[in-house]
């Protein structure tokens, strides 16, 4: 990993420490520092991805390592946007922890071989991949938020309230944040898929609709649209919708890893 990669990891870790501190003992200044550190981590991470691309003469998504790193970067960016939009910091500790674990796991889980430079596919293709990765990152965020919702709901029902309980965001806030995240994911996914289809049509004059990646992407669109519909339904709103949202992410993970690595012909990492 380039030294900027280690730097971004260190800044994310510092941000996590501040978010965790702020969760344990709320302090507006510590919260602000946590947000500032996250923003700094995202900037350093961006330059890391840029440097890596320049060094390898490739784009981040050409290999599993780069793609997962881009995913982490977009996850941080999406969370930062949600934090500003909803004015809620108490989830930051969980998101930054996920970021650290994700980036830390990259070295262990991804192949050591460096990617071979490929022929550029153009801006449309770049947008297609980046938007789809952004969608996955947003869905990952909704997964984290839904999990916290389920824990909070369980604690409220059990009536055994621990120290952290009073610091978590309210159920209503978590619900709104999870839905916002899914909206971001769906918009990014629809835009990304559309660009991919246009790009493929320009290239080959047709569409490979039978590709497992296309099929599972349509399934992902379906399950998240179902979530948004059911989240407003009397019988589903609340914990059931949160559970559905969390389970939907399993399909996303399957698509992102297993399908990309073994099933698809067009969407494999190079």
């Amino acid at each position: 990993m380039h030294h900027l990669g280690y730097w971004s990891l260190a800044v994310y870790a510092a941000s996590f420490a501040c978010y965790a501190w702020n969760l344990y003992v709320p302090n507006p200044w510590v919260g602000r520092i946590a947000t500032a550190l996250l923003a700094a981590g995202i900037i350093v991470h961006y330059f890391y991805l840029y440097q890596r691309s320049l060094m390898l003469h490739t784009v981040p998504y050409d290999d599993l390592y780069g793609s997962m790193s881009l995913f982490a970067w977009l996850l941080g960016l999406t969370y930062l946007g949600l934090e500003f939009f909803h004015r809620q910091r108490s989830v930051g500790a969980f998101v930054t922890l996920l970021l650290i674990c994700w980036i830390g796991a990259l070295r262990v889980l991804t192949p050591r071989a460096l990617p071979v430079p490929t022929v550029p596919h153009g801006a449309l293709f770049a947008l297609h991949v980046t938007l789809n990765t952004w969608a996955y990152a947003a869905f990952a965020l909704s997964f984290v938020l839904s999990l916290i919702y389920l824990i909070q709901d369980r604690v409220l029902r059990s009536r055994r309230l621990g120290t952290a309980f009073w610091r978590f965001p309210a159920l209503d806030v978590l619900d709104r944040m999870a839905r916002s995240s899914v909206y971001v994911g769906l918009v990014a996914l629809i835009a990304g898929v559309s660009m991919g289809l246009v790009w493929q049509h320009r290239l080959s004059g047709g569409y490979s609709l039978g590709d497992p990646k296309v099929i599972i992407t349509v399934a992902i669109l379906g399950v998240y649209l179902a979530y948004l519909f059911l989240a407003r339904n009397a019988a589903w709103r609340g914990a059931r919708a949160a559970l559905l949202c969390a389970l939907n992410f399993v399909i996303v993970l399957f698509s992102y890893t297993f399908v990309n690595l073994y099933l698809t012909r067009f969407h494999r990492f190079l």
Partner: protein
Amino acid sequence: MTTSTTDRNNTVRIKVALIGCNHLTAPVELRERIIFSTQQALQAADELRHQGILEEAVVISTCNRSELYGVPGDLAASATEAMEEYFTSFHQIPRSELHGRLYRWSGPEAVRHLYRVAAGLDSMLLGEAEILGQLRSAYNQALDHGATGPILNRMFQGALEVGKRVRSETEVGARPMSVALAGVKLAERVFGNLKGHSALILGAGAVAEQVVEHMRARGIGNLRVVNRSFDRAAELAQRVGGEAVAWESLETELGLPDILVTSVTASGPILTRSILERALAARSGRSMFVVDLAVPRNVAEDAAGLYNLYLYNIDDLGEIVAQNKKARESEIPRVEAIIAEHIDKFEAWRGALEAGSIVSDLREQFHQQREILIREQLKDMDEVSAGERDRIAHITEKLIERLLEHPEQKLKHGRGMRGRLAGLEAMRHLFGLDEEKK
């Protein structure tokens, strides 16, 4: 006028003193007789200063405490005696009646007491925030009135900082300590901000009214009151700015509120599972938070299992309050650490002021000794010319400055408060500065 004890040698020795009593030392029958109104507090501060008992004064008076803080006008141990004398004469209470009821602190102990008060450690309800507002108000009034000076200003500003830090950095004041507030705080865990949400109050019990007050303070959007007696409902509704609803329309009303607070005297549950099930259906499954304050309970036990209904009864809330009390108590060491840190800061400031005065005392004493010595030694030396005498005087003056330079720096900028204060005391003792004053 100086704001601390200044003797004829221009020595500044800073000491604060405090006398007072609180809920731990005096019963309410006594406390209510020694309360100071705002005007009386300012009058007492004025009189204490004009009578020369104190040079700076602040009076704090709440329902749980009456305390006089000040910087005594002289260093005698009788400062607190004089304050007590004034205190009893002001309220026209025999001293014997206050015997054993008043506490007296001076020096760092007085500072510690004030900081503990600001932190809420000395309050009836551990960690309560109200005292900090009362302290700020008492101090600001004294400040505006000109009753304070640099020492009490520093001390009270430190206290306000302690109060603020304790509430933002520890959990001592974070969790609700009353059943009513616990209910409202739990509702906030479901809905977040209560603004724009609605509540229905079933019954008109005292605790229910407290819940309503907390909800009102948080800007609850819509408030309705239902009671078997419409008049009582109307009375409560008018008092809390809500709307009274007839008992007969209870079931229809149940579909509207996000929060339901019930405290009706009844032999069995008024709200069964099926009634609440219908209410949830009427509100399209949106979450409902129910606080059942009645004994016997108004809400059937099996209703707790309803989806999106969060039900808390009086025992649940009582248990939460007990947990919170324990949690607050466990925070005391952290609060004490913040207090200790601020006492050190105050003492460092005080020490630095005193160090400056000690060095000037020493300088004055050395110069006196130098003049005496030169006069004695040169008395019989006629061969020493006037020019040589001037040179001797100049050299010995420079020697004194050089000898004082190091201890002065050590005392002003040395590390470790305890060591520095011990150093100050040792210097006073070794060079006989206190005896000199007497």
